[in-house]
């Protein structure tokens, strides 16, 4: 049984094709970097794998369950319980504090406010931003916001973390710090990570790299870097 599998996934936006029959497998515990130039379909693939977008054709399976065939509410529950999602920026709710933002997935799952806050504070502490618990996103730096977002993505202890250019909006030093924390915590929890990036250095943190080009997997792996298994 493959942990996460995409087979012949096709997705278009209007008349513009984004994915042209992509097939990819991800094993449990892997950290897979999906790389490629802008517009090659990396983010669309990630959104399809995470059940955010429904492909036009093909199938997505997570632990043998057809994700793409699930109704929206079930896919939402899957994202809340099994998956964590991390974007480049703008994912925190501006009106809520950092602790409330991190607690949100637990609150939506029915956890009590006090219990959810304790879990949120624990994760903020692990990410080194516990002192910002009662601060709103607008009062934080980009790096601090992204650490909060990482905490929110991991607070439910997901089995898979989908990260779309998680350090794309940060300077290289801050980006590296966030990425080191993300990879360390994912390894500690044995969380599988699918990471979209166009940065070769970021891809270097992965155990495997999948290179995309023009809406498909580049078999040569020469989109940005050679397709290599990093022995990490």
């Amino acid at each position: 049984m493959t942990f996460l599998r995409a087979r012949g996934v096709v997705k278009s936006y209007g008349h513009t094709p984004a994915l042209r029959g992509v097939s990819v497998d991800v094993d449990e515990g892997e950290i897979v970097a999906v790389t490629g130039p802008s517009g090659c379909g990396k983010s669309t693939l990630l959104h399809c794998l995470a059940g955010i977008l429904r492909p036009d054709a093909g199938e997505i399976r997570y632990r043998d369950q057809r994700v793409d065939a699930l109704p929206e509410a079930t896919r939402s529950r899957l994202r809340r319980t099994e998956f964590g999602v991390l974007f480049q920026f703008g994912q925190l709710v501006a009106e809520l504090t950092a602790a409330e933002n991190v607690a949100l997935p637990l609150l939506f799952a029915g956890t009590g406010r006090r219990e959810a806050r304790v879990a949120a504070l624990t994760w903020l502490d692990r990410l080194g931003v516990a002192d910002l618990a009662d601060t709103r996103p607008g009062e934080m730096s980009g790096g601090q916001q992204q650490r909060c977002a990482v905490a929110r993505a991991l607070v439910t202890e997901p089995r898979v973390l989908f990260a779309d250019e998680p350090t794309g909006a940060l300077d290289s030093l801050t980006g590296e710090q966030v990425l080191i924390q993300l990879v360390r915590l994912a390894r500690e929890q044995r969380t599988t990570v699918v990471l979209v990036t166009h940065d070769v250095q970021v891809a270097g943190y992965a155990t495997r790299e999948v290179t995309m080009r023009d809406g498909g997997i580049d078999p040569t792996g020469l989109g940005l870097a050679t397709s290599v298994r990093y022995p990490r």
Partner: protein
Amino acid sequence: MRPSVLLRLSLAGTRTDLMRVVLTAVSMLLATLAVLAALNVLAISTPLAVADETGARLSTQYSNALLREPGLRGGTALALVLLTIPILALAGQCFRVGAPARERRLAGFRLAGASPRQAVLVAVAETGIAALLGTLAGLGVFLAGHELLHRPDRRGQLPLPTDVLPAGPGVVATVVGLPLLAALVTALLMRRVVVGPLGVVRRSGRTGAPAPWPGILIAVGAAPFVTLMPLSRWLAEQDVPNWLAPLALFLGALFAAAGVILGTGWLSYTAGRLLLRIGRGPATLLAARRLVADPWTGSRTLAALLACMLFAGGAAGVRAWITTGRDVQEEASRADAAAQGYPYDPSGSDFYSRTLDLVDLAVGVGVVIAAGGLLVALAESIVARRRAYAMLVATGVPRRTLAASIVWQVAAPAVPAVGLALVVGALLPRGIATEVGVVRMEGCVDGVCARSEESVRAIPVLWDHLLVFGAGGVATVLFMTAVGLLFLRASTAVEELRVG
């Protein structure tokens, strides 16, 4: 999701969200006052004993004939309930305040794992809570006003029905029912908004250019008015219930109002195309392009005002009918009195005039409420487009050009739409009758009259009234646009380009 979490998330927001909550609460307060006032009027009990020489059972404790006479209370209550139409339209506009930011927040919730139902529930809860606060405040204001206005005059009569309270179940139904209605409407409106983890998409129900089809609705609405008199004899023979004809007229008026409001989409589009053809400056070009691109904004923002204008036109038509009838009757009575040699007593002839003045007052109140909705809609549309406006200013477009384009954008559809609403409203009563007559019997002995004479007079169109209403409607639109433009300066600050 636990109720405490739902409460926290539904009340999370910025100052704009707080403003939306306050405005929604205020509009619900007004709606509660209108409904409770109507229930209060209906709670007046009709005395069993005969109160006057004509045999009418009057509630003599009131100084106002609308409350004293049992036959008029239903109409008075209906007029008060009708006032809720512009108020609910105002509530609808308030719901749109800060909508983009709220929808972004809902998308954030979805990204954090909320199901589509949970995201909608948050929006519905926000409106429901705001509306409940409004209805509770409305109940408080009503009860306080009830106490404060209980002031009998020198003759011991009351100007308002402050000696009775609305029935308990009615009060509970109002205080709970209005928030439920608001929540339901929110849920329905949210059906057009797809909130996904990647953002918000609006489902547009209407595509393509608007057509003048709503004119058919106006024709359908006019049908009960036009056919009432020809069918009256047949209806009498069929022994149909008394309420059927008024209901048909009411539904006809609703259809006509819907036709005028939806027709404003076509008027906006046509006005936009016309402006494109004849406009010369950049302001008219901007306005014309906007009107053609989104012609439905006009019908949405002007809906309540147009409903008031249609009602005003109808009131002018009814006034013409009643005053003409009264004049004809008065002449006949005067002639009868002269022929029979007793003095003519004109007492009571001003009752209908006073009642019609009250109807005009109700129209005025409705226009004021509708103007509030118009202002909210204008301010919201300016704030929602602040980035685009700020970009235009940053590239050198003068603010006065933008202001002029907004004035054109509002006025171009408003002027013909107000005219159309007034004309349709004035024509509806004329569908029933265009002339009134009185039959005078002369030389009657034991019920047998020597001859009869019919005095007929055409009902005039009260152009002066229509003109005043029309000018008032257009002036209201222009005044509110001017007030709305106060938001333009703040919204075109170049800093707005940095707002996400």
